[in-house]
Each structure stands twice: as structure tokens, then as C-alpha cells.
């Protein structure tokens, strides 16, 4: 479909879904991890790891799928580091997660410089080679539907995978014994232990899963949505994911709604930033004197406000962030 035929609403909706996809993907992982009782502040770092891993491998090999696979594995590898310190080592999850974010920021920057140098020897451009990034995948005739077509059926392939994953994880949490265990882990590891459930093994798996999801979300940002990498390109989206899991009251539906809400405000402010110069409406021209940072701030302010209003009276998993076993016997 030709973008020129899209009306503003369709355009905004499409941008919203596009912006929400990585948040939902990383959010699924974070949700699973938090239900199991581990709060992974390092989600931002994991996403950034995914960004750089996907970009460099896709750029070096020319295969986007290799980049995506590497991003997932890299996310899991860094998550394993986090799991080793917090679950096996019983270190504080907030502190370890923060350290992880700093590590990922430094590491991705270093790899980025090395990659640029290496590429510089062959070719001055740092854009992804043609074909290395993903392009949108239109789903046959469905993509020609009015409104729904461009919004839901002309997205990157990872979007469809995210929808499937969300449905699967929702079903698992809701209907299977695995989901029961997952929900129990965060609320009462004591009860799980008494039931013969290996608390730490389960938490390891949940954190690895979250790492994989966040890595894939990073890949979405670098080799799908932008075909580029920039230092700290996640720009706090990982922290937004943390907030959105709380916003969604640890439910899949709430999480997705929150991500769409955040994505909507984000695409709205981006459109507004352009519209103040291009629009026919004089009222919008008045906004030209407003610094663009104010617009960029809007989604975060909105997320904060929504969080303050909506997340009251829901404590979340009782043992979120506590190591297990809680006390080492004397």
C-alpha cells in the first residue's frame, strides 16, 4: 500500500503498533521473569545487547536472520550473567541489574567502535548492506484491508512472532501447570519448595527467557525498524517496559494495552513534531518555539502519570526481587 494513501489515523495506528512491538516483546520476557519473582532492571541493557549483536552480525554476514538469532543468544548470555549473580549468588537484583545496564552500554559502544573501524577498511558507509536488514512482510490479501491491513498485516515478521508468543505465553500462564508454577514462584517460593519445585532452576529459565525476548526486541530496533545502530539507541525503552509490566498489573492484556498506549503517545508526539512545521493549521505553528526535547519527554511523562494513577493497590508478586532461599540458615 502506498503511504500517500494512508490517512493520518491509519498512519498513527501503524506507527503505534510498530513502536509497541519491541516493548511488548521485551515485556513478555520481563512479565515471565517478574512472575517468577526476579525483577530484571537490566532489561534496557539486554535490549541494547540485542541491538548491537543483531546489527553487527547482520552487517558482517549480510543475513538478517543470523543477526536476529545472535541477538537472542546474546540476550540470553547476558541474562545468564544476571541469573548467576542474583539467583545462584543471591546478589541484590536491583544493583546487579543496574550494573548490567552499565555493562551493556559500555560493551555495545565498544563493539560499535570496533565494528565501525573494521567496516571503515572495506567501505565508508556504516549502513546495513542491502538485504541484511528486514523489510516489512505483507500478509497477502489481508494487507490490502482498509486500516487493519497497514496496521496489523504489513509489519515486520517479528511483529507476527510477537503476537504468537504473547498468545502462547498467555495461554501457558493461564491454563497450564507450568503457568501455575510460574505464578507461585513469585508469590511464595516457600510453597513451591514444599511442593518439590526447584525454585532456582525455574527462575533461571524465566530469566533466560526474558533475556532472549529482550535480545529479539533489540534486534527489532536495529535491523528492522531503523537499519541502523546508535550508541544508547534504546533510550530508556527497557525502563519503560519495567513500568509497563507494573502498569499492566502483571497481566498479559494489561501489558499489551500499556505498550500500545505508550506507543500511541510516542507516535503522536513524533507526528506533532513534524506537523508544527508542515501543517496548514496556524495553531500548530505556535509550537515551533517549544524545544523538541519536550515532545520526546511526553510519552515518559504520560507513562509516569498512568503508573501513578493505575498501579495503586496492586502489590504484584509478593516475593518480587527477593533472593531464594531468603535466609541462609545459620
Amino acid at each position, binding site marked *: 500500500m502506498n503511504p500517500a494513501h494512508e490517512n493520518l489515523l491509519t498512519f498513527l495506528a501503524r506507527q503505534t503498533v510498530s513502536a509497541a512491538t519491541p516493548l511488548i516483546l521485551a515485556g513478555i520476557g520481563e512479565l515471565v521473569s517478574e512472575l517468577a519473582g526476579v525483577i530484571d532492571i537490566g532489561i534496557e541493557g539486554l535490549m541494547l545487547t540485542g541491538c548491537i549483536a543483531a546489527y553487527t552480525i547482520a552487517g558482517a554476514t549480510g543475513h538478517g536472520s543470523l543477526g536476529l538469532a545472535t541477538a537472542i543468544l546474546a540476550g540470553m548470555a547476558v541474562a545468564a550473567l544476571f541469573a548467576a549473580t542474583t539467583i545462584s549468588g543471591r546478589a541484590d537484583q536491583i544493583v546487579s541489574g543496574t550494573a548490567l545496564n552499565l555493562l551493556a552500554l559500555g560493551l555495545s559502544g565498544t563493539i560499535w567502535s570496533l565494528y565501525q573501524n573494521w567496516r571503515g577498511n572495506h567501505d565508508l558507509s556504516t549502513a546495513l548492506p542491502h538485504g541484511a536488514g528486514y523489510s516489512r512482510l505483507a500478509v497477502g490479501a489481508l494487507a490490502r484491508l482498509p486500516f487493519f491491513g497497514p496496521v496489523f498485516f504489513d509489519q515486520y515478521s517479528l511483529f507476527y512472532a510477537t503476537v504468537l508468543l504473547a498468545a502462547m505465553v498467555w495461554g501457558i500462564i493461564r*491454563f*497450564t*501447570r*507450568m503457568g*501455575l*508454577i510460574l*505464578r*507461585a514462584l513469585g*508469590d*511464595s517460593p*516457600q*510453597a*513451591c*519448595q*514444599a*511442593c*518439590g*519445585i526447584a525454585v532456582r532452576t525455574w527462575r533461571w529459565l524465566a530469566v533466560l527467557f526474558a533475556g532472549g525476548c529482550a535480545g529479539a526486541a533489540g534486534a527489532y530496533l536495529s535491523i528492522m525498524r531503523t537499519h541502523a545502530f546508535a550508541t544508547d539507541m534504546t533510550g530508556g525503552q527497557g525502563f519503560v517496559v519495567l513500568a509497563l509490566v507494573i502498569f499492566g498489573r502483571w497481566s498479559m492484556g494489561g501489558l499489551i494495552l500499556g505498550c500500545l498506549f505508550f506507543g500511541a503517545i510516542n507516535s503522536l508526539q513524533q507526528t506533532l513534531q513534524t506537523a508544527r512545521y508542515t501543517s496548514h493549521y496556524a495553531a500548530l505553528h505556535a509550537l515551533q518555539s517549544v524545544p523538541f526535547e519536550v515532545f520526546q519527554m511526553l510519552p515518559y511523562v504520560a507513562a509516569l502519570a498512568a503508573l501513578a494513577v493505575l498501579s495503586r493497590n496492586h502489590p504484584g508478586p*509478593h516475593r518480587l526481587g527477593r533472593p531464594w532461599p531468603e535466609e541462609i540458615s*545459620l
Partner: protein
Amino acid sequence: MLQLINISKRFGPVAALDNVTLSLRRGAIHGILGENGAGKSTLMNILFGLAHPDTGKIELDGRRVRIVSPVRAQRLGIGMVHQHFKMVESLTVLENISLAAARGLWSPGRRELIGRIRAWTDKLHWNLDLEKPVADLAVGRRQRVEIVKALCTGGKLLILDEPTAVLTPQEVAELIPPLRAVAAAGMTVLFISHKLAEVQKLCDRITILRKGRVVYTGAINELDAGQIAEKMIGARLKFPRLTDHQEQPDNAPRRDSGELAPPRLELRNVSIRGSRHGAWPLLNVNLSVRSGEIHGIAGVDGNGQDFLIRCILGQLEPADGNVIFGDSPDSHRKTPGTRSGTPLGYIPEDRLREALVLPLSVQANLMLKRYHTSPFAWMGLCRFGRWRQRSAELIGQFDIRCPDAQTPVGTLSGGNQQKVVVARELGEKPRLILAVNPTRGLDVGASAFVMNQLLAARREGAAILLVHSDLDELLAISDRVSVLYNGQLQETSWPDASREQIGKMMLGIA
């Protein structure tokens, strides 16, 4: 059926179990009696795979088994009901049982489980609402869920760790027939307790542990209560007698000793609004506590005790009515810290969470309330010399058994931990004392100690409000008794009213 042979287990220098040999018969209810720290919990943990013996062996049906984990224990047919329930509150009854009793990752096994659960609940004549979240169940109900859960996972041996500690007298009585039904179905029940009366009513055989050793095993009817207590504790005890309230001159009520003392604490028409619309956790409560008396509040847990206590502590503001300390009518507007002139001694129900800082030393815990006041501080600096001196006095006076004052409180036994709380709260002679289930989880000796301390404080003129779910202990030392039922407080004519009348009031049928 199950045999433990020469089991020993040490924790550091302490022998928790010393050469314990125990043999359980099929279809029997076997009681394990012992004081706190006698090794009961360790024994149970070994049976359930949560701890591993240093020496000795376990035989099940004649075959040697190694119980390396709770899963292994369950596979062997051993189910356990822990004293502190191990349930996930946000999940439903069925989900909790599925967590424990089903296997595999995918199917929660609803249909098959419901069949197994119904088979047991029919035998026990219980009615469980399987779809209800555990968080909505009262303690007695939760215990039933725990028992059914253990039955569904086990099948041969049911271990009950202090099952009656959280129950009302009525609920305890109601627990006996179902447990007999379990035994009649061919299972062995292991019943751990330190309450003699229940063990006598329920058990066929008993084993008495003292300091990690078996001091007696045999049929229950071979010993009388006095002999059992003697074996448990090693010597006869001085304990406020639970019956014959009137006969003890020391405990006689002071109601008619002429002029009534002025109330130290008064609640006038206090109501508290609940979180749900139209719910009143406390409604028009009138209450007074005078110097030199113990006012006992009886009631089944969950009838408003929490709200009453938090209201008195100033943690909850009443929607209506006044809480008055001494004679200042507006004192309910002050925070707990600024209710000066009325030092309040508070023994909370949950000493681990509300009263003690477990990793801190005995000394630091003893000073928690006074560390910043003269003479324990000077210009904002701690005077450790005074701390040491005062805590040494308190440790002696309240007979706290600890290696020294610098020992972390968390390493002491439950009874000694409670002594630390009592020493801190009563040691400075407060004029008003609020005690909530002060003997919870304590053995006979420690319970007697706590109750005697309350009686001593009363003799010295303290006004004591005692909220206690153990009716017998409450009646033994209270001068006046009121019953809290469904948020409403009603004073009884105790000691003229009978125990049975009060019990009926607790259940709202009188």
C-alpha cells in the same frame, strides 16, 4: 511401617537429634511431644527431605530409603502440613493442590485431582470450595486445604507440625474425627505438638523428645498428664493453674476491692470502616483497662483483633469514637510516639516481624525502644556502657538464655526470643501493657514464664489488655473478659460466666 534408626543431626556444636530411634505403625496416630528446641522440627524436616541426617537410617516398609528432597518424600508417600502454611495466597484451593499433587508441565490435572480431593473430603466430611482463592480463607479452612493437599500428595504418612497452634478450641475439637478417619483409611499420622491435652485426646502412641533425645515411647494411656509434662521438661513446673481460677488468691479478681482505679486506656464508641463498602471491622467498641487489672479479649482470630490493636497503637484512625489514654481526651490524635505520659508495653503477636530485629544482638534488641533516651544516650550519642549494664540486668531478671548479650537474637530459640521481647516491653515498668497472643508458639515452660510476668506486672499496678486466642490461658489470668465477635465487643460476667458460655459468645451463638 516407617522406622528411624539411630538418627543423629548436629547443627554446629548443637546436637539437634541424638541417636533417635522411632518406629511408626500403620493406621496409628503417633504424637511427638517436646519443648521448643527439643528436636521435633528437625525430625520432621528429616522425614520430609528438608534436612539430612548425619548418621542413622530410615526404613519404609522394611526397605532402606534416602529422603533427599521433598519430592522424594512425596514419591514415597509422605505428606506434610507445615506449622506455617506453605500456600500461594493468590491461587485458588485447587491450583494450590495442583501445584503440589500434579506432575508434569502442561495439564494441571483438574479432573483427576478433583476426584482425588473429593474422595478424601468425603471421608473427612469436609466441604472445600475448590475455586476460592486461598487468600479469602480463614486460618482453619486453610489448614484443611493443607491437610487435603498433603493427603493427595502423600498416601502413606501424614505429618502434622503443630497443627493446633493456629486453631480455636472448637476447631481443635473438630479436627479430631477427620484425623481418626485418615488413620482408619490406613494412613499413619504423625502429630507434633507441645499441647498435652490435645495429644492425649488424639494420639494412640507418643514419643517424647527432650534436648534431641527420645525420653519415652509408648502408648498414650500409660502415662498421666503430669508424668508426660515431667518427661518433657525434666522437672515439675510452677504454672498458673488453668482451672480453679478462684482458688488462687494471687490471681483473684480485684473487681470488688473498693474504689475502682481510673482507666489507663479507654475506647469510647470506636468504629473502623472497612475497605469494602458497608463493612465495619470494628463497630461501637467500648472498652476500658484499669490499673492493676488484666482485661482479656477473647475471640476467634479474624473477628477484628487486628483492627482493635492497630487502633490502640495509633496505626489506624477510627472513623468514629475516641481512644483515650490516661485522662487526656484528645490523645487519639497523637501518634504512637507522642503519646507521652503513657509508656506502652506492647507484646505483638508476630515477634519475628514486629518485635525483633533478628540479625541484631540481644543487647541491641533490648535497647530498641530506649536507645535514644537518657541515660542510654547523651547528646545523640550511644552510651554503650549503660546499654551493657542494663541489658545484663534484663537478661538476668528475665532469665534470657543466651551465650552473651552480643548474640544475634535470630539464633535464640523461640522461647528465649519472646523473653527478649517481654524484657524490653515490661522491663521498664510501663503503666499500660498490650499483649497479643503472647504465648503463641511457645512451650509450656516459656508460656508459664510469660504469663507469670504479666501477673507480676499487674501486681505492680499496670493496666493490661490481653488479646489472646488461647481461651484457657486467657481465662487463667484475666480479671475481666470481653469477647470480640464480628467486630463487636461484649463484656462477659467472668468469672461468673462459664468457659462454655464464653466459648459460645466467641462463636456468636449466645
